[in-house]
């Protein structure tokens, strides 16, 4: 355009529509600018509570995702061998009829023969419900592969979680400690928050073996050895206790620190909380004349621990009514962490952090929490009805994610972090970590996983939930796993998100049983969402020797793109892009709230599909209707939701008045949270930028776990069933119930082979252990000497840690096929500290082999100063499989890029009885991919490019 005629007032678009981004799990509000029926531009919605108008690289690149050449365009039926990627296009009627035949047969025969696993989707409020109606217990999303350790440890400890369910008090915190965070679900809110902290002069400390992203702008970087964070946090607790810098008043008000724990070794209730006849927990307190209770010597009385205005004791041995001894749980905690094993001098070498640094950081935490405490001039009322004139704040905040969770010690490590927060009085106070509504929930939340089928074939509860005791496990009469992935079994009792990483292996092995159909949605389980990827791909194609049929008889896959997993499907149901469908970011699933406002959101179609594709949610409802699932058909058999998911979003009620969307309920849209369906609900969302918000009242913003106004407000919106105070579980009685079962108590006990393991890992107080992935018999690993011996043998053979980090510009975005994002990085390297490189004679840019017991991969090394010596790392999920994503055959993603997954075993080495556990946290089943140990092997031609994979044959692993 000649600049003499430059028109700077050209309208951007014909039309602007709001919706919600889907390029990762952050779920920002976006404005889609449309011109001539095409997407011209996507930017952040300034009025949206998540992103306040900002947008990340992925969000802006959404336009390239939407117009990607890798989009599927028609249902596909496999005609070649599995894995060959040979299909013929079929019509939707044929595809749906075929799927309905397979699924209908299964449901009549045994619903558990359907394994339904979804990936990084945000539709679990629908998909989980659908699985429940179908009646299969074999459902989960990808949380077991992702960060269930964070979710489970948080929910069982304080009814909340890091993840995207809580946040640092960005406005008031003075000190932020980031544990194992490179990039996170809460991507843009964290970035907005870090900007505020930097402007205000708050200190940021990044604890991570690698310094990228957020760590880059941190004031201090602590290059810790992978898997030792629990030890470092334990040393901080040691220091706080040693120097008596803890908030005991906070502990007795909001946690169970003062609850009495029965000390009666061998008894069926040893280690449980002492309770009175009505089941109320007891504590010891200074006696006042009016107190009723069990009198002790010296003016001490045992009273209900939840009583107001008492003066509880946290140290001492007290005599219960039956003459037995009990001690406050705080005392047990203090004894554990004052132990020399958690002293800075003891942990320093293992963590790779200097003693002085550990002591200084502990001191900084205490100084910030106590010497720089803040007081907000805001009155509030506690659950006892007492009015407090101000809100006292401990301005120390923490955030943690994958570096903590992806280890087999992640559950206890995360619990250690939460205890550290509690000791500092820094959970939901001004300046500390804050809950985001609908959290806090009771710890743990009351919903248990469904176990049995009702007359109509539906499960009696959602397939995922929180077990409270051994009675809730999904095991058979002999204590064997009932779920295909062994979640909620004695092997992984608190597997709140399932074990997606075990599904293909177990279905292939028929252990615990064979299935008929594997239904996957957006889960790239044939590539980066699996461990031991090469072997997993073989299992998907493997045939049964006797019958000649595939060991996994049917595979149905729904994806919008030609991902690596498509080639393994028998039937492909092509999904739309996120700009072409309705979606629901529901309070029943994983909402987008922040600490000051409850919020949920929708997606609306902003463009029509130009291909023969359908939204997976619509397809799921259609399939369910065809096979007559309860809740999807009327009494006469007709479809209840003929208009698909958009209709379901509005009309479906989970409980009376509670549906997927909390906003504008009631016939006239005047109700929030609870109210009858409103036919205009979606219209109202669209009018408000596709988002609904409810501000937390001013007096309810902090101390939510014990704040009457907050609890009343949360109950009125349907977030909580009761307004009782939520007690933080410094001592986790649930864990002790499992330990007691392992010690031979109660009607539900683990099989003999599981007892030692359950007893060890179900410790009601957190503890640190190296990892469960040591070579050699796992039972030996339970023995400390053997563990040390096996550990040093492993260290000698595989001396280096190998982990992944998530690049901000591709995290969760399937970005390697995105024309713009892949220009930022088309391939990954193996990064290592120059010191590590020189110790292994690796030159900058050399091609080397990385070996684990499973095999070896050829990768290109790059020196990287901001990496802890002894740790190797690479960007996650950039390597692609040739033939996928419509990338050319010589694309760097498949020529030079790589996955570490090939080297990570999905199983632990066999124990004496030859059983192999999942390579996972023994409490939660969280995939332990950061436990990976490797060695470097030289290549004769280090200058010659090219990624290669050399796997040992099955069964020949070292």
């Amino acid at each position: 355009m000649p600049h003499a005629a430059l028109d700077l007032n050209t309208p951007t678009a014909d039309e602007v529509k709001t919706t919600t981004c889907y390029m990762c799990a952050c779920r920002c509000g976006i404005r889609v600018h449309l011109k001539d029926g095409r997407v011209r531009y996507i930017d952040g919605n300034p009025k949206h509570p998540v992103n306040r108008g900002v947008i990340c690289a992925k969000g802006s690149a959404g336009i390239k995702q939407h117009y990607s050449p890798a989009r599927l365009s028609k249902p596909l039926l496999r005609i070649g061998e599995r894995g060959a990627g040979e299909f013929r296009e079929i019509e939707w009627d044929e595809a749906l009829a075929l799927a309905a035949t397979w699924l209908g047969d299964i449901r009549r025969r045994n619903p558990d023969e359907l394994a339904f696993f979804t990936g990084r989707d945000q539709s679990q409020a629908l998909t989980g419900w659908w699985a429940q109606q179908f009646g299969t217990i074999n459902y989960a999303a990808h949380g077991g592969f992702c960060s269930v350790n964070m979710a489970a440890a948080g929910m069982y400890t304080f009814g909340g979680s890091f993840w995207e369910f809580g946040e640092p008090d960005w406005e008031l915190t003075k000190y932020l400690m980031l544990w194992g965070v490179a990039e996170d679900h809460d991507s843009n809110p964290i970035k907005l928050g870090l900007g505020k902290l930097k402007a205000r002069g708050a200190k940021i400390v990044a604890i991570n073996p690698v310094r990228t992203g957020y760590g880059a702008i941190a004031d201090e970087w602590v290059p810790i050895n992978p898997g030792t964070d629990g030890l470092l946090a334990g040393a901080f607790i040691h220091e706080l206790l040693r120097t008596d810098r803890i908030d005991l008043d906070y502990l007795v008000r909001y946690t169970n620190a003062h609850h009495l724990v029965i000390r009666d070794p061998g008894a069926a209730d040893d280690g449980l909380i002492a309770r009175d006849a009505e089941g109320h927990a007891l504590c010891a307190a200074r006696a006042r004349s009016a107190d009723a209770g069990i009198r002790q010597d010296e003016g001490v009385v045992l009273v209900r621990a939840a009583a107001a205005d008492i003066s509880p004791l946290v140290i001492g041995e007290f005599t219960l009514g039956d003459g037995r001894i009990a001690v406050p749980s705080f005392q047990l905690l203090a004894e554990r962490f004052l132990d020399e094993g958690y002293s800075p001098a003891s942990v320093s070498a293992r963590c790779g952090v200097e003693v002085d640094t550990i002591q200084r950081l502990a001191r900084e935490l205490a100084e910030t929490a106590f010497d720089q405490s803040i007081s907000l001039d805001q009155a509030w009322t506690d659950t006892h009805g007492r009015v407090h004139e101000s809100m006292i704040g401990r301005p120390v905040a923490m955030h943690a994610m994958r570096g903590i969770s992806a280890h087999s010690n992640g559950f206890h490590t995360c619990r250690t972090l939460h205890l550290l927060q509690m000791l500092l009085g820094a959970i939901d106070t001004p300046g500390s970590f804050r809950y985001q509504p609908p959290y806090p929930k009771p710890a743990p939340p009351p919903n248990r996983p469904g176990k049995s089928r009702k007359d109509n074939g539906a499960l009696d509860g959602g397939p995922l939930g929180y077990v409270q005791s051994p009675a809730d496990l999904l095991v058979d009469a002999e204590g064997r796993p009932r779920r295909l992935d062994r979640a909620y079994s004695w092997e992984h009792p608190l597997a709140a998100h399932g074990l997606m990483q075990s599904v293909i292996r177990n279905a292939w092995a028929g252990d615990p049983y064979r299935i008929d159909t594997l239904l996957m949605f957006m889960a790239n389980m044939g590539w980066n969402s699996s461990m031991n990827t090469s072997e997993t791909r073989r299992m998907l194609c493997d045939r049964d020797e006797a019958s000649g049929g595939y060991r996994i008889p049917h595979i149905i896959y729904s994806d919008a793109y030609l991902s690596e997993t498509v080639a393994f499907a028998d039937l492909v149901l092509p999904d739309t892009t996120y700009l072409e469908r309705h979606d629901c970011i529901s309070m029943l699933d994983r909402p987008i709230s922040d600490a000051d406002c409850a919020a949920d959101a929708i997606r609306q179609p902003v463009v029509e599909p130009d291909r023969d594709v359908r939204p997976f949610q619509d397809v799921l409802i259609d399939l369910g209707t065809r096979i007559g699932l309860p809740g999807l058909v009327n009494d006469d058999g007709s479809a209840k939701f003929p208009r698909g998911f958009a209709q379901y979003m509005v009309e479906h009620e989970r409980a009376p008045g509670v549906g997927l969307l909390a906003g504008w309920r009631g016939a006239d849209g005047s109700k929030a949270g609870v109210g009858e369906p409103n036919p205009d609900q979606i219209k109202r969302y669209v009018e408000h930028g596709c988002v609904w918000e409810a501000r937390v009242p001013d007096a309810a913003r902090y101390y939510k776990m014990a704040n009457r106004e907050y609890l009343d407000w949360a109950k009125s919106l349907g977030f909580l069933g009761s307004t009782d105070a939520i007690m933080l579980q410094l001592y986790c009685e649930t864990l002790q119930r499992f330990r007691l079962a392992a010690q031979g108590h109660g009607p539900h006990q683990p099989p003999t082979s599981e007892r030692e393991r359950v007893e060890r890992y179900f410790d009601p107080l957190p503890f640190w252990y190296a990892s469960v992935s040591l070579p050699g018999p796992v039972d030996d690993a339970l023995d400390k000497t053997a563990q040390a011996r096996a550990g040093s043998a492993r260290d000698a053979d595989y001396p280096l840690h190998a982990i992944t980090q998530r690049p901000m510009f591709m995290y969760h975005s399937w970005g390697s096929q995105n024309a713009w994002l892949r220009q930022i990085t088309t391939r990954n390297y193996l990064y290592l500290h120059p010191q590590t490189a020189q110790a292994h004679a690796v030159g900058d840019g050399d091609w080397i082999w990385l070996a684990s017991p499973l095999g070896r991969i050829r990768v290109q090394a790059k020196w990287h100063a901001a990496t802890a010596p002894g740790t190797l790392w690479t960007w996650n999920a950039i390597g692609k499989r040739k033939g996928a994503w419509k990338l050319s055959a010589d694309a760097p993603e498949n020529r030079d890029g790589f996955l570490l997954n090939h080297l990570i075993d999905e199983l632990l080495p066999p124990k004496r009885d030859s059983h192999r556990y999942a390579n996972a946290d023994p409490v939660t089943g969280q995939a332990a991919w950061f436990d990976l140990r490797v060695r470097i092997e030289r290549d004769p031609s280090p200058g010659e490019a090219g990624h290669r994979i050399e796997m040992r044959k099955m069964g020949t692993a070292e």
Partner: protein
Amino acid sequence: MTGLPPPAARKLGLVIDLDTCVGCHACAVACKEWNEGGAFGPLPDQDPYGAEPHGVWFNRVHTYEVQGFGPSSAGSACKLAASAPSQGAPTHPESRPSTGERPVIPDPANAMSVHFPRSCLHCETPACVTVCPTGASYKRAEDGIVLVDEDKCIGCQLCAWACPYGAREFSAKRGVMQKCTLCVDRIYNETLDEADRQPACVMACPTRARHFGDLGDPQSKVSELVAERGGYALMPELGYKPVNRYLPPRPRRAGGTKPETRPAAEPIDTAQMSPLLRWVDRVLSR
């Protein structure tokens, strides 16, 4: 050769805060997206799904590690010689690492990662304009924005050679030079809400590290920010007088007080007796 307009009072430009840039590339992609369909687009991509995808970007983010200089030198980290661009932006030739030498191995805890967004600095005396044989490159008299009139551009690339900052991008597909326009088609665009009349990169930046305004006005917010934070121009010694400013990393808040500055009033001698005993008589209230 092309002449410059008389110095103007108004100098629109960007102020980029290296203290808060996390290297997320949001600015780069938002820029690409806006300009792809804007008055100065498209920004062509070559081989987008092939072996060597590359395209025109007006804004790129480079990542450097700076080895072991310790907290005190953090402020000048970005001015130090870079080692390897560890990941990230489409690499510009100037920023490629020299692979020959082995650096002294520093204390890893002192290693820094620096993210450095780079785009046209809208210099007051830009060599890219004066070198232009056709008048295609020009500096606007009214606000100082440097633009390329594609109708006059012959694609000779003299401007790219002249610019020491690597701010210009040649589009082989279109045969013309392209560069940051400071979103001139946004900032004056009356069809947009007033709040949206900012460069796309500034709107997008998730840490709010990017600021836009009139650096010729000492009272403007951006000028005040530069004064307050010691904002600096890139390579001022070359004499092109860049308008854009970078804010250096703030001094890192290194540590707390020295040990034992707060002696605890212990009721017991914890060396002799169990440390638990000090909590025995603690009066707590629930």
